[in-house]
């Protein structure tokens, strides 16, 4: 291990390895198993060994017997890191983990950090309780007694969004159709069959105006990254973390300042500015798609789509693999790539040129946006190719 501790690092920081858990259905494993599997694959991908890792940052489990998932993972990986923490920023955890690893390396705390998030939400022994936990949200005394499910809270955003923009359910459906088209090219996605707008509009109503196919799937997930100031020891080009930003305006729906909008313009704008990148220079966007409305709000707040027109742009092919700005090329959470960490991992694969059938040509700069809670926690990353 190097003697970098307490030496501030002001140079570029890279993602040097990416790894996934085996997410094929029918496996008997728990969240920790997925977490460790993804982490080990990322460490190997970076050309490292356990002893090289001096930081372990992980997301949280919805259900598990582990009090401190990061420590349990670190223990299972044979690491004894200087920094070890379990982080909960809701759906922004995937992007936030990367940001915090960069901070730890810049501060001189660590040299090589593995960041990982996994959970067995799809195959867990108590899937019903996971569903209940995901369905029973809101302030425990002021909101939960009225039974606001997560889809219902996002539906409140969608109703207002329709009211203010004139967009329709058919417009939102175009985003689900677009992401599933990408998923059909991905061996990782849980759902790969193509959809039509009619499929989405005729799926079961969940919370008006959102239907089943407007909602992300409850699945297992697991991905990990190795972050370091040193260029990769692996054969793939390192991916520079060019910039990042975060905002946390509230937690609960009743404290939400705006409906049908978010603070994405501010957060992603600051991330792009810190990276010295403009929207026009993006080759790929990965936006958090817990629901179709979530993706639409981000795209429009960012200025990628005019107000109310994210769906129309999807219909017109703007977000296709060979479109103006390829979007959620792994199929998104709407195809079962849950948890937000897969958005980051996919951007890494794309920039490294490892995305196979869904590879975006000349993919050098990517924006990744994570959102937790009900548009409550936001963290954006700008990732770019490092060719020198």
């Amino acid at each position, binding site marked *: 291990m190097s003697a970098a501790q307490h030496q501030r690092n002001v140079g570029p920081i890279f993602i040097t390895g990416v790894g996934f858990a085996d997410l094929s259905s029918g496996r008997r494993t728990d969240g920790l198993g997925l977490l460790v599997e993804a982490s080990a694959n990322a460490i190997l991908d970076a050309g490292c060994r356990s002893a090289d890792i001096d930081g372990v940052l992980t997301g949280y489990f919805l259900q598990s017997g582990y009090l401190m998932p990061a420590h349990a993972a670190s223990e299972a990986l044979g690491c004894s890191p200087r920094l070890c923490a379990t982080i909960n920023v809701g759906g922004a955890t995937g992007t936030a983990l990367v940001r915090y690893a960069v901070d730890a390396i810049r501060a001189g705390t660590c040299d090589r950090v593995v960041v990982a998030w996994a959970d067995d939400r799809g195959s867990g022994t108590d899937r019903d309780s996971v569903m209940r936990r995901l369905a029973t949200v809101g302030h425990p005394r002021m909101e939960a007694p009225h*039974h606001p499910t997560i889809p219902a809270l996002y539906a409140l955003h969608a109703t*207002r969004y329709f009211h203010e923009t004139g967009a329709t359910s058919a417009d939102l459906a175009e985003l689900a159709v677009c992401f599933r088209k990408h998923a059909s090219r991905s061996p990782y996605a849980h759902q790969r069959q193509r959809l039509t707008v009619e499929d989405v509009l005729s799926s079961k109503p969940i919370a008006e105006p959102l239907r089943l196919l407007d909602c992300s799937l409850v699945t297992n997930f697991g991905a990990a990254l190795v972050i370091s100031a040193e260029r990769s020891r692996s054969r793939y080009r390192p991916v520079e973390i060019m910039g990042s930003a975060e905002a946390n305006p509230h937690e609960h729906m009743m404290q939400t300042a705006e409906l049908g909008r978010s603070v994405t313009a501010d957060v992603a704008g600051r991330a792009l500015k810190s990276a010295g990148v403009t929207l026009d220079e993006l080759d790929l966007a990965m936006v958090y798609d817990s629901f179709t409305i979530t993706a639409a709000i981000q795209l429009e707040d960012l200025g990628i789509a005019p107000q109310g027109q994210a769906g129309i742009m999807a219909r017109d092919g703007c977000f296709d693999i060979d479109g103006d700005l390829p979007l959620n090329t792994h199929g998104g959470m709407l195809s079962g790539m849950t948890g937000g960490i897969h958005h980051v991992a996919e951007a890494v694969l794309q920039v490294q040129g490892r995305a196979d059938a869904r590879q975006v040509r000349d993919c050098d700069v990517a924006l990744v946006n994570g959102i937790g809670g009900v548009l409550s926690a936001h963290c954006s990353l700008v990732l770019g190719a490092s060719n020198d």
Partner: protein
Amino acid sequence: MAFYRPIVRWSSVLQMTEGLEIDEAFSTFEDACAQGVLALLTCADCGEVSMLPRPVCPVCLTQNLEWRRTIPVGAIRSVTRVHRTAAPDVAPGYRLGLLRLDAGPQLLARLEGPEITIDARAVVEFGPPGEDGHRLPIIRLEEHPHK
């Protein structure tokens, strides 16, 4: 223990109903609801108004908070009808709305009665007592809008 037992009292200025003197922030709102009163947590020092029960004022961090009766009217910001719920004892098909009270804070609650659309004027009432004695706020269309 001061954090968990904030000084929360009913405003004597507003002559609140006798018997509501409770020093526990998290049950005072519910006790007011049980008596058909919508209460807002108000900072006696800076005047910040909130509906989230909490031990301190989020602006000046004082514990000098009072639950004050408010006029329970406002405008609907959004609505939904919930068709799927994981709670086994809850019948689907209920409506939810987010109401912006004229006093400032927002309330999330069930919608009852005639259809309510975005921007409609609405009033907060209270449902029947549940097994725990609580009466939940409900939102209805205002029949004779003042504005």
